[in-house]
């Protein structure tokens, strides 16, 4: 018989060990899944984890890595603050879309004016768009005690509808021959977010992600706000005793995560995506939830987790095209990572004891 026993102190080893074990378990079980689908598991795993960095097309794929990791990191760090405080913003995807739409709208409104101020204005508009979208569940929660998980999630679908309307309606390219989608920002230099160093995939969004990671780390480890966030998540009554105003914290955490998701959307639409289109979002807002947990809700951990998750994206696409694996299988693979992470996580606070029935 196996049973769990609470540890007196959380285990330091498992705190850092769980992500590694979770990745290993994902590879093993994912491999079994791929084998059942009639693929060579070793080849699939190698395609996903090895080829993007060291394989034949690595020179191109390595750049893709940061392109994918940037928005994931940016969103995940915002989410991690709320998650630590027990505030569950599940709707980063919606905030990401709204940030992209708002930011893009500002740029497209002044097309084809050329000014150095346009891009910064778009960045601010993007952040505000995401922030405003996140304020809806935040205010409903603080005023009417609604569940922010449901409200923020449902607002994703509203945002997707607005995105469809934007790309076929109010932001549609007037010179686009009737095709859905906005003007392409690559032909509008004042509003574009180009690759800054050729071949690396680094654009302003990636730089923002790394800056935010550093700021996030400082806030969580050194600033009283970070302490209050952690305290609210671990012991809400103790947080009130300390002097935290729970409503203000909800507004703060939702606002920050929404704003960062909006930023990620803006950087994506002006850079790698290039335009507002119906399917411009690729689920970064949802994947960032996995990234946040995989990174232990720790900004530095999230940077690594973001890169790892980007690897499964890039490698997954490779596997899909080269080995004919369905996209859903890759999503299952990514989901497995979160599943195993949360499962193995139990070992941080509990240990497994074996007990023989009767003798014990």
């Amino acid at each position, binding site marked *: 018989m196996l049973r769990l026993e609470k540890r*007196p102190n959380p285990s330091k080893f498992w705190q850092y060990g769980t992500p590694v074990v979770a990745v290993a378990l994902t590879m093993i079980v994912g491999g079994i899944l791929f084998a059942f689908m009639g693929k060579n598991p070793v080849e699939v795993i190698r395609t996903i984890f090895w080829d993007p960095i060291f394989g034949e097309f690595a020179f191109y794929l390595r750049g893709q890595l940061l392109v994918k990791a940037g928005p994931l990191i940016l969103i995940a760090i915002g989410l991690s603050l709320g998650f630590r405080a027990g505030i569950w913003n599940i709707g980063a995807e919606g905030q990401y879309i709204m940030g992209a739409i708002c930011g893009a709208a500002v740029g497209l409104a002044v097309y084809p004016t050329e000014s150095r101020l346009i891009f910064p204005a778009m960045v601010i508009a993007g952040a505000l768009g995401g922030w405003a979208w996140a304020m809806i569940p935040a205010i409903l929660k603080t005023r009417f005690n609604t569940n922010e998980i449901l409200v923020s999630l449902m607002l994703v679908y509203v945002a997707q509808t607005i995105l469809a309307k934007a790309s076929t309606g109010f932001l549609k390219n007037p010179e686009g021959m009737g095709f859905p989608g906005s003007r392409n920002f690559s032909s509008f230099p004042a509003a574009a977010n180009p690759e800054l160093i050729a071949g690396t995939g680094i654009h302003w969004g990636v730089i923002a992600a790394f800056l935010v990671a550093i700021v996030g780390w400082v806030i969580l480890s050194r600033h*009283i706000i970070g302490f209050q966030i*952690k305290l609210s998540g*671990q012991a809400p*009554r*103790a947080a009130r*005793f300390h*002097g935290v105003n729970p409503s203000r914290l909800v507004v703060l955490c939702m606002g920050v995560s929404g704003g960062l998701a909006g930023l990620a959307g803006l950087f994506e639409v002006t850079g790698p995506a290039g335009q507002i289109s119906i399917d411009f979002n690729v689920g970064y807002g949802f994947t960032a939830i996995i990234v946040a947990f995989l990174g232990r809700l720790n900004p530095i951990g999230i940077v690594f987790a973001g890169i790892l998750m980007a690897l499964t994206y890039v490698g997954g696409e490779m596997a899909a095209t080269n080995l004919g694996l369905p996209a859903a299988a890759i999503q299952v693979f990514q989901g497995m990572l979160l599943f195993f992470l949360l499962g193995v996580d139990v070992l941080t606070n509990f240990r497994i004891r074996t007990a023989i029935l009767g003798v*014990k």
Partner: protein
Amino acid sequence: MTRETLLNIRGISKSYPGVKANEDVSFSIGVGEVHALLGENGAGKSTLVKMIYGLVKPDEGSMELRGKSYAPAEPSEARGLGVAMVFQHFSLFEALNVAENVALGMENPPPMRELAARIRAVSEEYGLPLDPARMVGDLSAGERQRVEIIRCLLQDPKLLIMDEPTSVLTPQEVEILFKTLRQLSAEGTAILYISHKLEEIRALCDGATILRRGKVVGTCVPRETTAREMAELMVGATLTPPERRATAKGEVVLGVTDLSAASPIPFGTSLKNIAFTVARGEVLGIAGVAGNGQDELLLALSGELRTGADRIRINGHAAGDLGPSERRKAGLVAAPEDRYGHGAAPDMSLVENALLTGAIRRNLTRNGFIDWAATRAFADEIIQTYDVRTPGNHVAARALSGGNLQKFLIGRELDQSPQVIVINQPTWGVDAAAAAAIRQAILNRAAEGAGVVVISQDLDELLEIADNFAVLNEGRLTRPRTVEGLTIDEIGLMMGGAHGMEVAHHAEA
């Protein structure tokens, strides 16, 4: 007195990682005997009765019930064999009525109407009047305990285990309970009575087994043993009562006038027109049975529950609308009753817990950035000054025993040079030596000029340290009066007497 043996326990041991909760414990209980299990907190009483009730399995040793081997795998098996238990913390649903709560604890509950009739019959038979249709949320702590007792009595137990039953009762209610227990004992039900209140045990019990650090250190017949002898067996040392220095009372540092507030706690007690003042150097003791507004009063004083600005004055300044941080700035520190989760964050280290309330008065932040070196030094200072037994300041608060954590948390508040100190249940669940140290520390701060409010359910404690005494009953506070010359009977009446329960043993309800 020779009785037939009901339960015989031989050489029971139980270990948890790092602690031996019980080691080679043996004793026996006769049919109809009221047997006390006496010991400080952490002496292993709870673990022992959990093994008897089938919640925990012993590592070694054996038990016999009426001569037959007894090893319950789970509580339902124990109940089936006639062993029932009333826990210290009730497991009742406040939003359900009495009969529904009783039904939830039964294997095969009879139809509600029949059950209600049986509850009425049993409650009248044993002098514990209880209306089966009443909502548990509306009952006093004493009445809730009756629900638990009646739940047990419906199973017609042969052995009734009671864990610290009087901690929630007024002195008058204790008398009623004792009458019921004596009646049960006369009918042949054995009672295993767990307590650390010595006078009660002397009044009620036929025999006593004394535990210290998991081992049996003595047995006695309580009626023939003095409380002092039992206390010394229990603690293993002689105790010195705290030292009081008479201090001149200064100006008022905390003034509360006409404070009313709805409770933020579900089924809590709202505060009604509370008024008192505390002067520099004064200790005001506030007694009362649990659930009469103690938690709410602490929240209102600490700033977690805000009221009109002029309802609370700290050093003469209106503070009723300030939050906890601003009140600390004004000189008031508070220590809530619940240590794991309210006073401390259980999963955080002692350093982080030192920061929890120390940040403001100890200047542990600069422009919002935490000075971790200063915070660590503050934690170490508390650990040293208050003799907190811990491997270091990095351990999680939950790893400390209740008494050690309480020393840390009280020390954290007292070491902030406060002008006003509010403490709810300073020594609840703390062993005698630590409790004495905590009381002494509180008195020392008062002697240095702080005004202190101690809310406690332990009357002996309040009489020992308080200058003035008031009682919180159903959210109202009696007018504070000096402790000198107060008798236990007077206090009991201030506490609301028996809450109208005394009729029970005189006439039919």
